């Protein structure tokens, strides 16, 4: 491979598109939201900033899913647990940052006062420090993924078995977090955040900053993903997806490869969760429900597995439609989502982007 790193990752057009995306999200959106007056036709309301920010978080999750499913053939139905754990770690910091401004004017978060707890549980220690909380965002889901993945991949659980066990994993975690005694606010989770790093969390400036950070994270993870799938590591992963036995017969041990991509994917998910919580303002165990995790798979499938841009588009499409549908005809959203599941698997197995690529390739062949 004689190509430079930049040309290995993207062609010139794609680089331009990525640059444009970054400029729009980091410069244009803040300007339209903050500098353009509210009455103007060009003003971008905070509602849209929050909504798009949220969808970008989902897009990061879909990207993480694509790395394990699209490129390595491991379908996880439990990615919600990593997303939620990242969110909870961030939420712990945000809860501590409320300080004494809660309803009970206590140093402890409100729900602990409500449970009549006198002091913080050990796992809450240090969460008032932003850096420690950010470390938790990465470490906790990463470790869980590493341990779970090690045992699962070592005994060569794969395919549907693996999917079902990951689903059980997130289900168990959801049940655990629903309990008040677990110490994460039970049913209600965390909400009513006041500030992050001293900035008011509802201030437009804070929101725009979080939005820009999410966009940068998205672009960064896209580059990282591209770096991985174009490397030798990426080829081994694709080989594992296509014929794991042959990879083993060729002298490779799939365990470290799978474990690496699985853990990385979990960490990316967790970071998306950590970005999601301050923008949406709530985290509760519902994020861990099996239904949520399986939806992630359909974002990826709709956009196109095995293409890195596809899942981003899929997540954007489905969640865009969802936020419109659930307002306009909430009754029919499940029909729509259900039909997407069925139709995409039946007639669009490559996803939107994959299908487009196939058409272009055909055209080029003809030409």
């Amino acid at each position: 491979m004689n190509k430079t790193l930049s040309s290995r990752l993207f062609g010139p057009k794609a680089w331009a598109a990525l640059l444009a995306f970054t400029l729009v999200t980091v410069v244009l959106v803040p300007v339209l939201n903050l500098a353009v007056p509210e009455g103007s036709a060009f003003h971008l309301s905070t509602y849209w900033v929050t909504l798009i920010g949220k969808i970008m978080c989902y897009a990061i999750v879909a990207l993480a899913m694509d790395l394990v499913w699209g490129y390595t053939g491991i379908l996880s139905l439990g990615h919600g647990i990593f997303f939620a754990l990242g969110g909870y770690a961030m939420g712990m910091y945000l809860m501590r940052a409320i300080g004494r401004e809660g309803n009970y004017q206590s140093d402890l978060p409100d729900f602990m006062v409500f449970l009549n707890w006198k002091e913080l549980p050990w796992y809450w220690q240090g969460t008032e420090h932003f850096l420690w909380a950010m470390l938790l965002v990465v470490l906790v889901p990463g470790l869980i993924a590493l341990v779970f993945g090690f045992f699962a991949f070592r005994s060569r659980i794969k395919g549907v078995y693996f999917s079902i066990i990951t689903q059980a994993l997130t289900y168990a975690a959801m049940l655990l977090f629903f309990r008040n005694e677990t110490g994460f606010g039970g049913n209600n989770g965390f909400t009513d955040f006041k500030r992050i790093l001293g900035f008011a969390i509802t201030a437009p400036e804070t929101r725009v900053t979080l939005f820009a950070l999410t966009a940068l994270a998205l672009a960064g993870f896209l580059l990282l993903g591209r770096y991985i799938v174009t490397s030798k590591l990426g080829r081994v992963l694709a080989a594992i997806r296509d014929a794991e036995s042959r990879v083993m017969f060729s002298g490779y041990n799939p365990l470290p490869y799978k474990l690496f991509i699985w853990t990385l994917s979990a960490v990316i998910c967790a970071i998306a969760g950590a970005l999601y919580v301050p923008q949406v303002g709530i985290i509760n165990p519902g994020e861990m429900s099996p239904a949520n995790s399986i939806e992630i798979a359909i974002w990826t499938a709709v956009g196109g597995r095995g293409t890195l841009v596809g899942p981003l588009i899929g997540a954007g499409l489905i969640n865009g439609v969802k936020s419109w549908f659930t307002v306009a005809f909430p009754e029919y959203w499940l029909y729509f989502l259900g039909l997407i599941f069925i139709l995409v698997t039946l007639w669009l197995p490559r996803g939107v982007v994959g299908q487009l690529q196939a058409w272009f390739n055909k055209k080029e062949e003809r030409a």
Partner: protein
Amino acid sequence: MTPILARIRTTCAALAVGLFSVCALARPAPELVLQLATGDNDAKITALAALAGSADPEVLPLLEALRDDTLKSLEGKRAIIYDGETATDALTGEKLATVPDELEDVVSNNRVTQALDAAFAAFNLGADDRATRLDAARTLQEAATPAIRPLLEKALANEKDAQIGGILRLTLAATQLRDADRAVRLSAIRMLGESGEPNARALLGSLLEKDGANYREADESVRVAAQQAINSINSHLKLGEALGSAFTGISLGSILLLAALGLAITYGLMGVINMAHGELIMIGAYATYMVQNLVQAHAPGLFAFYPLLAIPVAFCASALVGILMERLVIRHLYGRPLETLLATWGISLVLIQLVRNVFGAQNVMVENPAWLSGGVQAMSNLILPYNRLAIVAFAIIVVIGMSLILTRTRLGLFVRAVTQNRQMAGCVGVATPRVDTLAFGLGSGIAGLAGCALSQVGNVGPDLGQSYIIDSFMVVVLGGVGQLAGTVYAALGLGILNKLLEGFAGAVLAKITVLVVIIVFIQKRPQGLFAVKGRFADN
């Protein structure tokens, strides 16, 4: 027994009863009657107990008068029964010429009413009807006082029924605990100790309590006996609890088994991962609901049998939906298990919303017919509900039926053939696509049966299926693919393990522990409990 001997016996019994009533033909003690009409509540209660204890049929009209509020007091000196027209002296039975104006109502509070019930029960102990006697014995057990002892002894002497006799003996023992005779107290304690009843334990416990400095029971050896009796009751109750949790475990296991059996065919044998399996269960439950409504509307007389009618309907409804699913969607995805998973998840979403739109998002009412409600009282603290027993029996029948279908019918033979080697089966002339459809229909129909059974023990709502899908997949994964026996053992094992852990750790932690156990178990045996032996390549 020869007929003559039998007749002699009957005659003797009749004679005894006759004698008994002749002896009792005395007027009730006058001071008791007066106390009843004119005394305060405590006096009334003592009087009632004494009157009931006398077992005198003459007392009955008096008690009825008190119950019907026709017993009046006249100037606090005489008891008059006034039925709206004539006034009779309750003591002498003579009619008063004129109805006096100053008649006062006898007011009874709750405690008096209870004592009155007990008194009536005392009379009902002599009734011919067994159910009446049983009722009476139970009422008396609640309100055992030393005053009714003679009555209990008499009733016991005449009682032939073992169950009623047992209750009476316990009641008698309860009244004997304060007897002056140490031997009587000891035998009463032994009696109560053997009963295993929680309220007998409370009675015995009261002997060990202190009134001021002294024990209520002065005799040391009697106290020791009481303590032993309490211990024996405790161990009896513990046994009951253990059996109870074993039973709930088995019943949960049968529910899991019913829910997972269909999956054992569609996933275990055919390798189709059907995330809409839970919704097929839900459809079975709603089919049962519709049958219930139809029967109630058009043939209320058959209501008792509607679950039996619902069984085939639920089977057919779910089987039909399953066949449609197979023909329209799943057929095109064979060999792509992950896509099948997603597509069937989509189907499940559509089905849930469909049911919500048709039946509403709320749970619907499915009632137990009379023969499925209530339960057997197996031990003092162990009741086996009929609907749970029925589910266990139903699960057994379905398992047997299914294994017969798989091993004894042509369809079963084809299904097994296609499972083992699709191409080879096709080569020897098995119509594999048709077998796929039928097998999938069979698995779905069994899900419908599970729904029919579940509707009798739990809520029926659009989300019914979602709560079973993960559990039933766990059963199949644990049991091993392609084996019915594995499914059976896994379901029962998980059910019992779950209930055992619930005792220590609560429902949620138990569930989490079970999931962790499964994940760890699969480390050791990735193919499940019962692996099919053979040489398969993994893809």
